[in-house]
């Protein structure tokens, strides 16, 4: 099941440049939360702070607290544990190119010491089903590489790989921006289904996509959280002029 995320006064830096200026936000469990805003507004940095990916960049720093389902992601918890609970899917599908479809999904489990073949088979199938990819690949699981799939299939494979380790939160950074409209629609359908089991946070430049998939939407601008509300409110009658100007294309 998904969990709530409570972010409190989150600040992030690259070197001396502060790119998030004290963001506080409650992310609801089992809901889709979209993060929108112009390039450089801090939205990707924000979600990368949720699973400790930000700190993988040299000179990057974080302050503040991120509470994920009751545990503090920054209070002595090993980053690897945080990332197991908070999975991530990136803009460009990045399957392990030399591995089979099966091994791509099983990779995270094997790294965590999962060895039983029968259990692995079960998790791989369940993850591929959740990612709506099982029917398309079940005949070629072990003799086709992940890289041989179409872009949309590769992205769903990456989602299956993230789901295999049974996270509670799934972060998606522009997961459909490199995909055609049909593949995008499949990913969006999938996001809708995934929220039953996970908390989903999606960064997107595509505002129509945010409007279609998200329950809540947050608008970021220059490192600040400007407005955060129900998606229908943000896209029909936002409270802040800056949000309105951005989503109506008057700047950005």
């Amino acid at each position, binding site marked *: 099941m998904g969990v709530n995320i409570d972010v409190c006064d989150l600040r992030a830096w690259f070197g001396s440049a502060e790119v998030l200026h004290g963001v506080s936000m409650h992310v609801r469990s089992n809901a889709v939360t979209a993060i929108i805003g112009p390039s450089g507004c801090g939205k990707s940095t924000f979600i990368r702070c949720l699973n400790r990916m930000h700190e993988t960049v040299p000179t990057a720093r974080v302050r503040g607290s991120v509470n994920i389902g009751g545990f503090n992601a920054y209070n002595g918890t090993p980053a690897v544990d945080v990332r197991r609970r908070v999975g991530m899917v990136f803009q460009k599908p990045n399957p392990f190119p030399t591995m089979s479809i099966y091994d791509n999904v099983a990779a995270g489990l094997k790294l965590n010491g999962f060895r039983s073949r029968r259990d692995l088979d079960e998790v791989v199938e369940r993850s591929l089903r959740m990612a709506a990819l099982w029917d398309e690949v079940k005949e070629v699981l072990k003799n086709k590489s992940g890289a041989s799939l179409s872009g949309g299939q590769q992205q769903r494979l990456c989602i299956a790989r993230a789901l295999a380790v049974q996270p509670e939160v799934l972060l998606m950074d522009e997961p459909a921006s490199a995909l055609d409209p049909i593949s995008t629609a499949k990913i969006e359908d999938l996001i809708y289904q995934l929220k039953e089991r996970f908390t989903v946070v999606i960064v997107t430049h595509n*505002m*129509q996509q945010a*409007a279609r998939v998200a329950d809540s939407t947050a608008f970021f601008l220059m490192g600040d959280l400007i407005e955060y*509300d*129900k998606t*229908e*409110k*943000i*896209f*029909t*009658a*936002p409270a802040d002029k800056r*949000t*309105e100007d951005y*989503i*109506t*294309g*008057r700047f*950005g």
Partner: protein
Amino acid sequence: MSRTRFHDALDELKDRLLRMGGIAEQSLAYAMNAYRHGDRQQCALVFETEQAINSAHREIDELALDLLAMQQPMAVDLRLIVAVIKINADLERVGDQAVNIAQRVAEVLDLPPAELPADVPLIAGIASQMIRQSLDAFVRGDADLAQNVLVTDNEVDRMKREIEQAMLAKMHDSPEFTRQALDVLLIARNLERIGDHATNIAEDVIFWVRGADVRHGKVDVIG
């Protein structure tokens, strides 16, 4: 993400709606001239104008639909287009009411003249002013001005009720003038309906500007 083309198209949509509003107002003015002066020529102008209103009605809906489909507007722009579609329908109905009035005036002119205690030009003036004020509110994006229109509607309703009662009394007391009294009663109803359309337009302006639904006496901020 420049949306100049889209915003130019929104301006075009507003301009077209205002032109349509102007035609609808003119049509009502022709109908009232016909009433005041017993002028059949003015009735004919109302019937001619209806064609222009119907064409504008279709063209505005078409442009609005194109913008919804092609530009996927959001927030204030989305509310504007939805408001324009609804105001467009109300203005078309104002044109229809003007036609109804002109038809009744033409009918009255075939009948012997009657002294009727009804100040039709007064209620017509207020209804016409409500249309103008609601369109001014639209031009200026002024929700306060639109709010004034809502208040005026009560006055028009009251005047219509007074005319109704006076005409029913006339029919009772002077049955030979029943048809004339009935026509005036129906004209008063047409004018009252025009006031209702102006009210709808004002409510749509408030929805566009404030994102608030004030219809049916409720105030709901949408979203």
